[in-house]
């Protein structure tokens, strides 16, 4: 009895925007599941608010809804589509929580939807701390001593029985968000209170500390016949105490004897059975006492996870794909192993290499946050590497991180030892440095609790890093079976091995005769370079394959669809460095290499590749340089007669100060060649500029600093266009909701523009065309413009142009219903726009799409939430509706900042915004909101005849504005900056809003959009609409 015939339509929930703890791995899992279910003949209904996902490409489902992942919209989808079943295990915690809510409110029962994969009770047993603990104890398993509490008083009663240090985890949050380790009674009270607030059910688990124990994870799969297999064991090099998402991890486990490992295996199987996950994958986490071998169960996720994506990439066993088949009735033995094609999936992969995963952090973007690693996940991405030895894998993974800011190792050994003991983002760089300086293994073991096996390996790497790479580079296959059976799936990594006696490298590559094209991926996700670029790379691979060539992918990010071996004809899981890429190119002898789709990572390699004689497809390196180089680009604009803000470049502080006077304040300053606006700031006066330059910008390598005149109160516009060198097609024009000065990646934007006139739009089109042709673009071009209202009429300025895939390509593609990256790739392969038969205008104008950024401030409580020119968002969502306010409201809700429909608004704005701010307050008052404000703003509001209650500033003492927010008296904050220094009132206000989970709008234009959205939302839950309906030709 393989496939279930009693269900036909299956609803899949995605995980929404990329946030810390929930990233591209759920696009990988979800896309696999959609593909498999479609292959099995089911109709798939998909809901995911994240447009930058492959799974939301319309061909992946029967009906694709880019709608908020909230009970309201999803209920509407269910009512329209009437699915028979809901598969909730592929969209992370978001999907699981949502499925739980839909069960609890009776929606699933009312509409006859069956939960498949994991039922409600199993989800509860895994997710409810108390229930999980009871379940484990009754299955005879040991768990840490613990108690749950819903109040601080409760928690204090348990402190003696549990002991300190104790670990506090809030129930039902992602990646342990809001938890922590309490080492003192004082800590304990603070962390418990924070945890109760962070938990959607107001519950925390307080646990016996197992800090310093070994941390292990097993990926388990179970089918309806109760057959269970372990796909992979993962050992955290960082012991218990550092969240597994922030830990360097290794697969398979290295330090346990077979006897202990088999006990873990037995327990993992007992856990999945006890929790009652009927079919599919789960992740079980254990702590193992390094002295006694004692094992305790820490937690289990009854769904695919970040670790299951890692395990899939580490072993070649596609967990999500198989989980989807199991959910519709298949048994493991009825599913073929993809890699061998000759053996079934009812087995346990065995590997003959070592896999190391490194987290990628972005603390440099969040000044003032606590950068110590704890049980609360803080990394924004990860890189994985495969080597034949631990040393090979570790060093490859280390260089795959592509750090923007190298670890600061120029400190005393004492400082290094202090730092490794605290465990920060650079702890392994520091550990290696300490070892190089002769720190003893005993000292380091004492300081870090890292298993001596790893310390010994690291010591060997510190002494002679090249020893790990002795021999010749040899490409091997990931085959799930350590070579026991021939592999048919071309998933490769480079190993360093002794050559054969004839000197050959014994590669395992079946290159074939077809021409190939190498696509360079985007490496680990980071802020400014995320899933959007992976989306483009995947589209490039699809296009290359469709053209009859072999698509060859190089990437090192285990979360992604691009590193699914199904995506390309050959996958090389390798670091994206020039050396590693050239080695693949040498073997592949490709027709060309594509660097346009993976963000800055491949672009940084472009010049080196060209120097090595590699043919780059599409826009030339020279054109990229002409766009990136301020001087060359300025000349180009001048030649075209297009306006740009005055600018200058400087290499020293003196040069910069002098140039600043010519350019004119305010200035937008930044170092050259940065991504996501790193270290970019707006300065209003000479003193600010001096301060900035002293702080950050004068890089030791003497690289250039850009000084642009900053256009205040401008409307920013983003354009994505296609060009084949002769013709240009405008993909989409997006108007930013926030004014210029907010990084485009952090700004909401709307397509088509909601307040630009036809004449201005024509001018934008014309200038985009001009630039594309002048740069000889072949492929994609993104241009950023600023529009300024002058008494004489609106003026257009070109801010910058990037001849490559931009972050907005997936959003535009979803909004206009045309796959821009695929079209661009076709152009790069030699097609012309004329031959592609595109309409001259891709935007239909029948609906409005809004993109909103999602910011990680709830993870970085010390950071200021004020938006600025440095990008800090991790992900994005999209809202689609017939009108702008409704689309904006949907986007806000999808971003997790649902606007209130009633309540109290706190308004405090800078002096120049007072008049407009008061107008906004009046609008909100008319919508029924109570208005509170600090004195200056309150006066302005009163003058509008709007009743307003005054709140005290922090300096005036309690009860002040921050108390009011913390006390839950405020439902919406509108705060435009009056100085962004730490500890200013604004900073305190914004921080309190984030802690409380209240939407906090920091621009006036954002506030105006919000007011319109609130007004629109009062007409009731907006309609939901599928992408397939939107783009159906009328």
């Amino acid at each position: 009895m393989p496939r279930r015939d009693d269900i036909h339509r299956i609803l899949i929930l995605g995980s929404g925007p990329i946030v810390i703890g929930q990233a591209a791995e759920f696009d990988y899992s979800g896309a696999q599941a959609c593909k498999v279910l479609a292959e099995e003949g089911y109709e798939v209904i998909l809901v995911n608010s994240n447009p930058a996902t492959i799974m939301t490409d319309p061909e992946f489902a029967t009906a694709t809804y880019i709608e908020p992942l909230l009970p309201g919209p999803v209920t509407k989808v269910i009512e329209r589509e009437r699915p028979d079943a809901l598969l909730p295990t592929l969209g992370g915690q978001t999907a699981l929580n949502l499925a739980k809510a839909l069960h609890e409110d009776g929606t699933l029962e009312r509409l006859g939807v069956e939960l498949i994969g994991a039922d409600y009770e199993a989800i509860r047993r895994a997710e409810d701390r108390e229930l999980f603990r009871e379940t484990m104890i009754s299955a005879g398993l040991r768990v840490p001593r613990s108690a749950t509490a819903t109040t601080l008083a409760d928690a204090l009663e348990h402190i003696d029985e549990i002991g300190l240090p104790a670990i506090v985890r809030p129930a039902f949050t992602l990646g342990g968000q809001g938890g922590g380790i309490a080492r003192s009674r004082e800590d304990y009270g603070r962390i418990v209170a924070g945890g109760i607030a962070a938990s959607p059910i107001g519950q925390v688990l307080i646990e016996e500390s197992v800090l310093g124990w070994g941390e292990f994870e097993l990926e388990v799969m179970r089918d309806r016949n109760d057959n269970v297999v372990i796909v992979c064991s993962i050992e955290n090099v960082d012991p218990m105490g550092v969240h597994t998402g922030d830990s360097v991890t290794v697969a398979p486990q290295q330090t346990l004897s077979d006897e202990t490992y088999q006990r873990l295996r037995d327990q993992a199987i007992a856990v999945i059975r006890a929790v009652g996950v009927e079919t599919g994958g789960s992740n079980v986490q254990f702590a193992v006492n390094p002295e006694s071998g004692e094992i305790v169960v820490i937690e289990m996720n009854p769904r695919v996870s970040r670790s299951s994506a890692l395990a899939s990439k580490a072993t070649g066993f596609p967990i999500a794909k198989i989980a989807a088949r199991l959910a519709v009735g298949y048994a493991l033995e009825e599913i073929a192993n993809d890699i061998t094609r000759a053996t079934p999936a009812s087995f346990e992969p065995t590997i003959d290499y070592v896999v190391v995963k490194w987290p990628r952090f972005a603390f440099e973007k969040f000044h003032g946050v606590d950068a110590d690693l704890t049980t609360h996940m803080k990394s924004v991405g990860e890189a994985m590497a495969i080597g034949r030895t631990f040393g090979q894998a570790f060093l490859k993974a280390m260089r795959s991180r592509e750090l923007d800011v190298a670890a600061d190792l120029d400190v005393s050994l004492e400082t290094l030892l202090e730092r490794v003991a605290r465990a920060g983002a650079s702890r392994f760089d520091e550990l290696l440095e300490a070892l190089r300086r002769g720190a003893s293994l005993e000292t380091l073991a004492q300081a870090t609790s890292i298993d001596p096996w790893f310390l010994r390996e690291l010591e060997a790497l510190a002494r002679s890093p090249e020893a790990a790479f002795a021999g010749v580079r040899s490409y091997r296959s990931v085959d799930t079976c350590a070579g026991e059976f021939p592999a048919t799936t071309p998933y490769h990594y480079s190993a360093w091995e002794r050559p054969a006696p004839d000197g050959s490298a014994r590669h395992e590559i079946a290159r074939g005769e077809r021409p190939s094209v190498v696509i360079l991926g985007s490496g680990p996700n980071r802020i400014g370079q995320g899933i959007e670029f992976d989306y483009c790379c995947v589209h490039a691979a699809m296009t290359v394959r469709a053209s009859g060539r072999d698509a060859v992918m190089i990437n090192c990010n285990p979360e992604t669809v691009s590193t699914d071996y199904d995506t390309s004809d050959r996958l090389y899981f390798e670091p994206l460095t020039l050396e590693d890429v050239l080695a693949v190119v040498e073997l592949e002898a490709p027709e060309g290499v594509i660097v346009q789709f993976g963000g800055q990572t491949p672009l940084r390699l472009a010049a080196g590749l060209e120097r090595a004689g590699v043919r780059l497809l599409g826009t030339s390196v020279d054109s990229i340089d002409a766009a990136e180089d301020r001087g060359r680009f300025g000349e180009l604009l001048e030649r075209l007669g297009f306006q740009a803000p005055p600018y200058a470049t400087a290499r020293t502080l003196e040069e910069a100060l002098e140039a600043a006077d010519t350019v004119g304040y305010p200035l937008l300053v930044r170092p050259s060649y940065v991504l996501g606006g790193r270290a970019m700031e707006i300065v209003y006066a000479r003193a600010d500029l001096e301060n900035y330059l002293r702080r950050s910008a004068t890089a030791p390598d003497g690289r250039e600093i850009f000084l642009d005149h900053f256009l205040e109160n401008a409307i920013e516009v983003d354009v994505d266009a296609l060009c084949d060198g002769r013709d240009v097609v405008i993909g989409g024009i997006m108007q930013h909701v926030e004014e210029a000065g907010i990084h485009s990646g952090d700004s909401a934007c709307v397509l088509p523009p909601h307040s630009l006139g036809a004449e201005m739009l024509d001018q934008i089109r014309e200038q985009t065309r001009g630039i594309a042709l002048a740069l000889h673009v072949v492929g994609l071009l993104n241009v950023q413009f600023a529009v300024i209202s002058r008494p004489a009429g609106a003026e257009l300025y070109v801010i910058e142009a990037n001849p490559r895939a931009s972050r907005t390509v997936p959003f535009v593609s979803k909004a206009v219903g045309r796959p821009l990256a695929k079209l661009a790739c076709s152009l790069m392969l030699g097609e012309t726009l004329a031959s592609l038969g595109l309409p001259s205008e891709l935007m239909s104008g029948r609906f409005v799409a809004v993109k909103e950024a999602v910011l990680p401030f709830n993870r970085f409580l010390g950071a200021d939430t004020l938006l600025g020119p440095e990008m800090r968002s991790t992900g994005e969502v999209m809202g689609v509706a017939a009108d702008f306010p409704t689309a904006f409201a949907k986007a806000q809700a999808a971003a997790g900042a649902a606007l209130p429909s009633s309540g109290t608004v706190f308004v405090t704005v800078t002096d120049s915004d007072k008049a407009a701010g008061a107008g906004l307050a009046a609008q909100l008052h008319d919508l029924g909101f109570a208005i509170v404000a600090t004195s200056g703003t309150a006066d302005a509001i009163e003058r509008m005849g709007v009743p307003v209650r005054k709140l005290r500033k922090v300096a005036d003492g309690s009860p002040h504005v921050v108390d009011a927010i913390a006390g839950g008296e405020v439902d919406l904050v509108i705060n435009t900056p009056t100085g962004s220094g730490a500890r200013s009132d604004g900073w305190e206000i914004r921080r309190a809003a984030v802690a409380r989970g209240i939407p906090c709008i920091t621009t006036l234009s954002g506030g105006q959009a919000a007011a319109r959205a609130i007004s629109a939302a009062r007409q009731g839950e907006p309609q939901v609409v599928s992408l397939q309906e939107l783009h159906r030709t009328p």
Partner: protein
Amino acid sequence: MSFVLLEDGTRFDGEAVGAPEAVTGEVVFNTAMSGYQESVTDPSYARQLITFTYPHIGNYGVSEAAMESDRIHARAVIMRDARNHTRGAERGWLDWLRDGGIPAITGVDTRALVRHIRDAGSMRGGVFVDDTDEAAAAAAIAAEPAMSGLDLAREVTPSEPLELAATNGSRGPTIALIDTGVKSSIVSSLRARGARLQIHPCTSDADAILAGSPHAVMLVNGPGDPAALDYLVEQVRRLVGRLPMFGVCLGHQLLCRAVGLETYKLRFGHRGANHPVKDLTTGRIEITSQNHGFAVIGPGGEHTIEDDRPVRWETDFGTAELTHINLYDRTVEGLRLPEARASTVQYHPEAGPGPHDALHLFDRFIEAIGA
């Protein structure tokens, strides 16, 4: 330079890290990622050179508890990147190999070696140290007898019978165990379930075995070619039906031969801890520990069982059924003689090393004796 040489002339270089001696035998590979000490002390590896596919071997040292017999039986160990760590263990792996006089080689491109054996089949070969002349090495390999036709059980069987009490304090059945090279895990699995063991040399006569009035007979693992053990098959024929019987690995092959089946040499054998085996009578799948180079041919001459139903036929001991198959290659993995109260599996329910999925078979055996 030290190296591995195969009888077909294929050579893989490495560094000697064990006893500094040359050795020849059959080169095989094991795909388990842990359990190296259990493997090399398993008597079934007699005359074999084990290639471990997992690169780091020795990570957690060696300890008394992981011994599957009183000494190392593998002739040599071939590794990619050996470790000699000792934390929490009693001895470093390489030190222990050297003390045991076992040659070992590391730095070998084991994946290339395994892929070669996979395609060409297990073959004779040797580990040679210190720039041994390749022609001399080849001659040494040629002098090594092939595994087919070898009776190695005699080399590892005890010279005298031995009795062992139960270890769980209960007074369970007395089981006669014919020792063809038994692993400690089998002995301890039975004793832990209350069995008293009468361990007999593999050359024992059925009458001598019956003289101890056992309640059941256990046939166990062991090295060499089952086809070379006619003398033992004959004794097994005399025991089947008289007492409940359970067979594991070589013991499975012996009982199969006793009911008229033949065995053959697999191309490269099954050695590892991840082989899925399906029990055709229950539909359950177990992930199993495996170590065998020979397998049983079905009653119709079939090397593989394509159907998921037990193959049944009549034998001198009543109806026989092939109850288990390996899902990797659909070879025979188990036999049952319901009327004779006998059953066998080709794999290792005792684990040591490997998964515990099939430990319940010992419970079933003990229960069957009681019934």
